[in-house]
């Protein structure tokens, strides 16, 4: 079709993302005039009502920010509280937390790869329609997702908002024998995630390589989940305590989610691609080998290949979970004793979608005075808009329908969790 001079691309309600968002792109010729990822998800004001709650309540309350990644919220809250209150946990508790997080990564990545993202590449509206033609693939995806959920349910009682994680450790820890039933399914899941990576690496994708600043945790020896310094591809290397000195949130009119920027740099990327690019050397050999076979060479810059990176992370998570099953011994106590005191604690962990930062200030009774939570989607939101701005000019020759599909897919590359992104923020952020 001919290229109209002025075009507006609108998606009033983005499908296959978690939460309520809309997309708006205004083009004049091949120039993009405006791009807005509008988040109209209603604000729930978590940071306000956390004030006055006891530190021990934060993990369960903040889990309710997101039904897809509740463990990420529990972990960031717990680590921040433990930093505030000077708690050291048993090495086996630490290991169990990694296992718990692996379960969430497998579940969340499995959901996104098969149910939300793959339909874009294969030309279906959803996984159910996909299953009519590719039943075995969808069944594999569902079983893989379930394998992750089984870890979460075993450790925490249920898949969504599990109940066992606590400041200091767990309310209840399993015996070594209790974990054993996970082993067979995880062995299958490891093979299935390798097959998944190989499958999705064959999907057609356009050439598009923005100049990202990748930001992720980096740990001295491990692929990052719960711990590590915050690193970036432009040389940043800071502790979570310094996060707010380097990253800033802005409130824009078109979104109920705050936008994050790296001070002095601009938008940045968190999530699987950043973790992979900054921590490739920390992946186990098996995951590196799969990456090589899928032609993923760090730095991977094409966001349309994030589906492959997510699959390689599932290989890592299954492998890591199996390693933990071998090494785990039940700790003598499920959790350390913790007393409230006046303090401040900050922590960042790697949610499936990227860095999740929490900061809490506590009073002498251990009640929360102030809270700040920065979810990965807030951090990625300006970057998503930048991607669209850079992607659109190359698509001017396409029909509006095609441009819309591409734009939606570009948003879904981020696995954006809009429910997460809407509930945050902090006092008086308009500092610019």
């Amino acid at each position: 079709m001919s290229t109209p001079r002025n075009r507006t691309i609108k998606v009033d309600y983005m499908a296959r993302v978690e939460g309520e968002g809309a997309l708006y792109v205004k083009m004049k010729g091949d120039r993009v005039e405006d791009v807005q990822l509008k988040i109209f998800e209603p604000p729930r004001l978590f940071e306000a009502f956390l004030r006055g709650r006891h530190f021990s309540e934060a993990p369960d309350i903040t889990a309710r920010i997101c039904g897809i990644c509740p463990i990420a919220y529990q972990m960031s809250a717990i680590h921040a509280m433990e930093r505030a209150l000077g708690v050291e946990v048993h090495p086996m508790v630490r290991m169990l937390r990694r296992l718990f997080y692996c379960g969430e990564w497998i579940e969340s990545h499995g959901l996104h790869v098969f149910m939300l993202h793959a339909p874009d590449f294969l030309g279906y509206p959803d996984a159910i329609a996909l299953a009519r033609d590719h039943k075995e693939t969808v069944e594999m995806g569902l079983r893989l997702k379930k394998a992750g959920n089984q870890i979460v349910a075993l450790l925490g009682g249920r898949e969504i908002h599990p109940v066992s994680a606590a400041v200091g450790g767990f309310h209840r820890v399993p015996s070594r024998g209790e974990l054993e039933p996970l082993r067979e399914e995880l062995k299958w899941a490891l093979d299935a995630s390798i097959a998944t990576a190989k499958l999705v690496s064959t999907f057609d994708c356009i050439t598009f390589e923005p100049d990202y600043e990748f930001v992720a945790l980096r740990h001295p020896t491990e692929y990052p989940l719960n711990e590590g310094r915050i690193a970036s591809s432009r040389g940043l290397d800071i502790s979570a305590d310094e996060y707010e000195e380097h990253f800033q949130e802005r409130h824009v009119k078109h979104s109920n989610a705050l936008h994050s920027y790296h001070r002095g740099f601009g938008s940045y990327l968190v999530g699987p691609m950043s973790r992979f690019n900054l921590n490739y050397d920390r992946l186990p050999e098996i995951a590196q080998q799969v990456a090589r076979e899928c032609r993923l060479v760090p730095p991977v810059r094409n966001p349309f290949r994030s589906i492959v990176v997510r699959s390689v992370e599932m290989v890592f998570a299954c492998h890591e979970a199996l390693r933990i099953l071998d090494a785990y011994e039940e700790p003598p106590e499920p959790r350390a004793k913790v007393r409230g005191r006046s303090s401040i604690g900050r922590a960042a962990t790697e949610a499936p979608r990227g860095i999740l930062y929490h900061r809490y200030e506590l009073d002498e009774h251990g009640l929360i005075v102030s809270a700040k939570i920065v979810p990965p989607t807030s951090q990625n939101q300006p970057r998503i808009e930048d991607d669209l701005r850079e992607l659109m000019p190359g698509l001017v020759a396409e029909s509006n329908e095609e441009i819309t599909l591409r734009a939606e897919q570009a948003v879904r590359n981020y696995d954006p969790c809009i429910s997460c992104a809407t509930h945050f923020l902090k006092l008086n952020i308009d500092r610019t």
Partner: protein
Amino acid sequence: MRSKSPPRPKVAVFKFASCDGCQLSLLDAEDELLDVARAIDIAYFPEATSVMKKGPYDIGLVEGSVTTHHDAERIQHIRRQCKTLITIGACATAGGIQALRNWAEVDEFVRAVYASPQFISTLKTSTSIAEHVPVDFELRGCPISKHQLIEVISATLAGRKPNVPTYSVCMECKRRGNVCTMVAHGTPCLGPVTQAGCGALCPAYHRGCYGCFGPMESPNAASLSQQFRVLGQSGPEITRAFRGFNAWAWPFRQASGEGHRS
């Protein structure tokens, strides 16, 4: 042949203020999902599909609470579109954790969170769907149980009453063979006043119930508060215990106020 089979009931899933966890429960029913999708026509479920069919719908599942003017209007429209309207989860049935704003000055809450409060449009309260429109069935839980969800959908399609018990968590706890966390360990537990459905999870994981399925039928919350006091809980601690994920459900709201006064 697809064309010869009777039309499948049209099901729609709507989201209000929530975490997405309850609608995710449907996708988490990995073993049942493809069968469910064969039995029903998933006509509107934006989290899972980009096909968005227009109403009317046979069944509407509503997740989330009403917190904005826009949503207060939207639920009226949705009610008119749905033959049977089922609310799923603590946000939809009781206002959710975000109902804690109902005790506060909401403008101050917004200022505490957003730098430019004038961009934010929100109601002073977070309320259940049933406070706005008639609801045919309320499924409790934060999150709901996926087994109960499948039961409610199956029962509705079959035209029978869903088998969802309204007794307390204590019943499930006894059946599971848990040691009573309150009697044996003196741990405060909302189990005696909370509706069953979770399978007595928290006591099984060595902690007290925190009430995520909301008040049971005819709870004696005042008596439980008294027991909490015997266990050494302060008034503010009792208030916080009841002001959780189902804080705005009337029996918990009432009990939390009494804790506050003492």
